[in-house]
């Protein structure tokens, strides 16, 4: 389990980004970390991976302080940044030097992932396009079989078929021991994948709920006429009408649009919070 307790962090002393920040991430989940630009998503991932150091407070993984970045911890975490570095060597060479650092690295799985992404394995890594580099890095990250996988904007640059492949591969990679945290703006790419949803706003987790609970409490409707004030929780203009987020009073199963949920939470989160009886969930 990853635990962040009473963490304070800011890039400058006077500009605090995280103030007494608390969060717990349990194994067996693919967390979707959503937030506006500058909300602190990437910073949070770097704090978890130990690339940044809290001013006060701690971040631990199974009682190990992450910022100490011991080799034992680092071999259990894979952080894939939005733009990752690939050296000017061939796939086989990359595998020979990097896979050894990860004790459970699965070579067969790696080549299988490359095949799924339709990436040629005989090429030099620097000859790949941006999207191909992303696919390669994703294939490696998933084959590393680490207990924690942090992905920052993983679908940026991926073509449409690759996004589907990505969802399939992540879904097949998760098990009871692994924690996935996917930071993204492309919420539609993450449909049926991320659960729970974490929404970060100005260094604070303002929403942290499982999809099942969200769907139990909220319903998505489509209206042709604009709702009256107070009639619904949130609505947005869409083509030919209005997408409406409302309280699910009849308990019927329905699918929630994550983008609409995000906009609702960010625009007026008090209504949603009261519906979920939510203080900020820890």
């Amino acid at each position, binding site marked *: 389990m990853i635990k962040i307790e009473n963490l304070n962090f800011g890039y400058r002393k006077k500009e605090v980004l995280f103030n007494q920040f608390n969060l717990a991430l349990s194994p067996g989940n693919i967390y979707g970390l959503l937030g506006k630009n500058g909300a602190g998503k990437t910073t949070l991932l*770097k704090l978890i*991976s*130990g*690339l*940044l*150091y809290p001013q006060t407070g701690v971040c631990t993984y199974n009682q190990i302080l992450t*910022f*100490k*970045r*011991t*080799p*034992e911890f*680092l*071999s259990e*975490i*894979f*952080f894939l*940044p939005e*733009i*990752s*570095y690939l*050296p*000017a*060597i061939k796939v086989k*060479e990359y595998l*020979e*030097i*990097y896979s*050894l*650092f*990860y004790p459970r690295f699965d070579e067969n799985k790696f080549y299988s992932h490359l095949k799924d992404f339709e990436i040629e394995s005989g090429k030099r890594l620097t000859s790949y396009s941006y999207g191909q580099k992303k696919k390669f890095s994703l294939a490696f990250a998933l084959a590393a079989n680490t207990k924690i996988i942090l992905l920052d904007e993983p679908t940026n640059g991926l073509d449409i078929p690759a996004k589907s492949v990505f969802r399939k591969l992540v879904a097949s990679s998760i098990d009871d021991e692994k924690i996935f945290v996917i930071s993204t703006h492309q919420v539609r790419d993450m449909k049926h994948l991320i659960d729970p949803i974490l929404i970060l706003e100005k260094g604070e987790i303002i929403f942290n709920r499982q999809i099942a609970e969200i769907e139990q409490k909220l319903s998505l409707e489509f209206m042709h006429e604009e709702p009256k004030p107070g009639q619904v929780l949130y609505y947005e203009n869409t083509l030919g009408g209005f997408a409406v987020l409302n309280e699910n009073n009849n308990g019927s199963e329905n699918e929630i649009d994550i983008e609409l949920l995000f906009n609702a939470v960010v625009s007026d989160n008090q209504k949603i919070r009261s519906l979920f009886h939510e203080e900020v969930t820890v």
Partner: protein
Amino acid sequence: MSKVFNAKRFFMMITREFTLNKKNLLIIALSMVLIGIVISYFGAKPYTITRPQPLPAYTVKIYEVYPFIVLVYCAIIVTYSFMELNTPDKKIDYLMLPATTAEKYFSKFVYTTFGFILLATLALAVNTLFVKLMNSNVPYDYYKENIFIFYRQKVLQPINYWPYLHYYLVLHAVLFFAGVYFVKLELPKILLTVIALALGINLFSLFLNTLGVVGVYSFGYNTNFQRFFTGYIPAGKQISVQSMYAIGEFQRQTIIVLEYLALFIVPIFFWILGFMRLREIEVKDGV
């Protein structure tokens, strides 16, 4: 102990260093061979045409250019040995490698010391082999000279390389530290720092000079810096000729001792400083 230094992880880091840099190393080795051949070619000319036997002393000196070339390449390789810290993506890749600071630091240390010296020796061997091969196939009677000259035994004796090895270690230590310390534009920054330091020392000694520390005498030292450390006598003081020579001798001996100390202490000091800086990046600065 394995928490600080693990042989397996260290070997993995070394393998990584050589695999990622093999293209650069190959280019460097080839260019060293090429430069060696050029030196051999021009080195053969002055004596073989006019005086075939024996070799004049200065011809041997030509081959002492080779260790100098090694030092120049050392400066380039060592300065850029921490290129991984230059950009955020490379830095993340490097810092997230499951290895300790000691393993990361010493892998680069081994690559730039033993690895590079081995490479330079190999380049020299290839050059010598090539030159010997060329000479043996040239019709000597026709040309009346060797096309190339190869490195003579004297040059390859360890005693000849000892001062260069010292310079190498001092240069390595200072640049290795600078490589970790300066994130970008390492080489220009290092040059500027050296110039600034030299200027600073000279200005400081000049300043002391203007304060009234006069009566300078010199034993062949020319700069303000050297005079400052070797021969200032306070103004208005009387000193006998014998005492002056005694002081001079003492100062000469002191400088020799200091030079030797510097050769051993400076590398160790900067290597430790470099390690501490990398550790600081690892556990304080982050990305």
